[in-house]
């Protein structure tokens, strides 16, 4: 079974300490610390020594999703000061100068984008991003992929094309305005169709905006998706 965790931003926007409180004691071994806004990054860096992260085998940090070209060097500098076994999730459309990000190598996980963005939405567009940052790994956002192509063909192509790069999954449901919501049965069915292509050691990071009382229910849904691959014998039948 794949490791499962939450994005702190989904549980408590801008308050990673509160989110980590919610996670304590839950059967979760992965976490993504969110610093989606530029102002959150130095606060998170300062807090790292005091955070109890012992419960987690996999830790990722979500870099700011938007910054100016003049802010970029400082963001890169701050990110280099985080523990070097943490993955850094990055939106490809946020990057101004890819050369500055090259030293992160395989620690970097580029994420596919939702349909509001003008780049990074499809395999073709992500291939161009990887050509600029060739060592980067891949964070597949299933909700973004589903929003771009509701048939899940693009998600399938992402998993096939970048199978050697995939290091984590973002999972949630998007509404038509691209807001993250708890998973519906429809999304569970759609994601289950491609889940068998996700390697067993790749963590699912839940991005659904849920209250602390809804966490267990959302974890159960993700377990259902992750375990669907093992249940589905259909995948092995040759065409």
């Amino acid at each position, binding site marked *: 079974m794949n490791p499962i965790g939450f994005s702190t931003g989904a549980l408590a926007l801008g308050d990673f300490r509160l989110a980590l409180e919610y996670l304590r004691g839950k059967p979760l071994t992965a976490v993504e610390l969110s610093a989606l806004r530029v102002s959150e990054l130095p606060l998170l860096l300062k807090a790292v020594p005091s955070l109890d992260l012992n419960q987690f085998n996999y830790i990722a940090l979500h870099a700011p999703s938007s910054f100016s070209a003049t802010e970029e060097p400082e963001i890169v500098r701050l990110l280099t000061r985080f523990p070097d076994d943490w993955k850094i999730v990055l939106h490809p459309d946020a990057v101004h100068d890819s050369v500055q990000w090259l030293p992160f190598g395989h620690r970097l996980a580029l994420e596919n984008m939702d*349909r*509001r963005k003008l780049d990074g*939405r499809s395999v073709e567009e992500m291939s161009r991003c990887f050509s600029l940052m060739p060592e980067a790994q891949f964070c597949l956002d299933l909700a973004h992929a589903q929003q*771009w*192509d*509701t*048939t*899940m*063909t693009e998600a*399938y*192509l992402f998993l096939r094309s970048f199978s050697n790069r995939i290091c984590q999954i973002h999972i949630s449901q998007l509404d*038509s305005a691209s807001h993250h919501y708890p998973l519906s049965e429809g999304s569970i069915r759609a994601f289950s*169709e491609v889940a*068998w292509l996700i390697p067993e050691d790749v963590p699912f990071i839940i991005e659904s905006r849920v209250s602390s009382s809804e966490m267990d229910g959302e974890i159960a849904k993700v377990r259902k998706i992750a375990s669907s691959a093992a249940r*589905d014998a*259909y*995948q*092995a*039948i*040759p*065409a």
Partner: protein
Amino acid sequence: MRSNVIFDQIRSPIDELSERLQAVWPRISTAKHAAVEKVAELDEALAGETSADTSVVVYGSLAREEFTQGSDLDWTLLVDGQANPQHQKDLLSIREKLASLGKAHGREKTFGKLTFSHPILHMIGGEDDTNANTTRRVLFLLEASPIGKHREAFMRVRKNILHRYLTEDHGLTRKADKGSARWIPLFLLNDMARYWRTMTVDFAYKQWDRGNEGYALRSLKLGVSRKLIYASGLLSCFWCDPLISKEDHRQTSQMEKIYILNQKLNEMFLLTPLERFARFFLTHVESRYLISTAGRFFKTYDDFLGLLEDGDVRSHLESLSSDEMDEDPEFRAARAIRTRFEGAVREIFLGTDSPLHQHTLSRGVF
């Protein structure tokens, strides 16, 4: 329409085939350049008009990249998103911008309007699948292209239409008792055949409705450019068979088959109808039979475009009455082109040396 820089840099399969055959088809080339220029002009005019939820879609000769002097500008504004009264205002603004850039859309009022993804996608078959709805849906696959900055709504809807045709065609994923499951998507093939027959019936309807006005030109188009789009649809369905596209899917599982077919059909429908045939011929370049047919097929189509490009001939054919047609030398010459084209299409699909022969008999006829 491959109007953006990346697509324009990709060499067309027609260019490659023309080099292989050491043949030139100047009218096909001219019409393509005219289409690319027209799309660039439209792109500029439409700047800022669409969003991630909407695409302006062009049809007909512009989508086929066969734009000639007399070509209409057929378009719709596709909406694939939340209901919003603003869409009507967007339509009016687009209509105003496009009015000065091309001859208005045809009389049947299928074009120049808002088109919503839901009926196109959900109403396949049954009483609610009107003539206009079937036309829009099948043209979305065979002869339509998004223009302007935002293409994604169109691409999304096209993939979803294909998904319906593929996932509801249980024979694609159900194993036969002996041998393997079929690859040719019959639900899709049958809907395209239905559309082709609808066009031929509507041809007679227009004759009745318009008192034979424009009969000669319409008859010519039905037998050449309309037949081309249907034939290219049939070819795309047969292309799904790995033996026809020469792609190795031995390692493919049932689970992947629908995604692979969706992608394969999408790639085919991104090409123009003529390019679909060029791709097929290039894949079977070792077949002397097909390569010889390819030369006749493209040469005849080039002649047809030459005829449409000649303003005098076109006007003459448009105004010719059905009583005068049989004795009219220009119509007789045009009819000879149509006959040659029909012959080439028959050779491709029904010739005993064609790899499509058996599929056409077993899937395309009954």
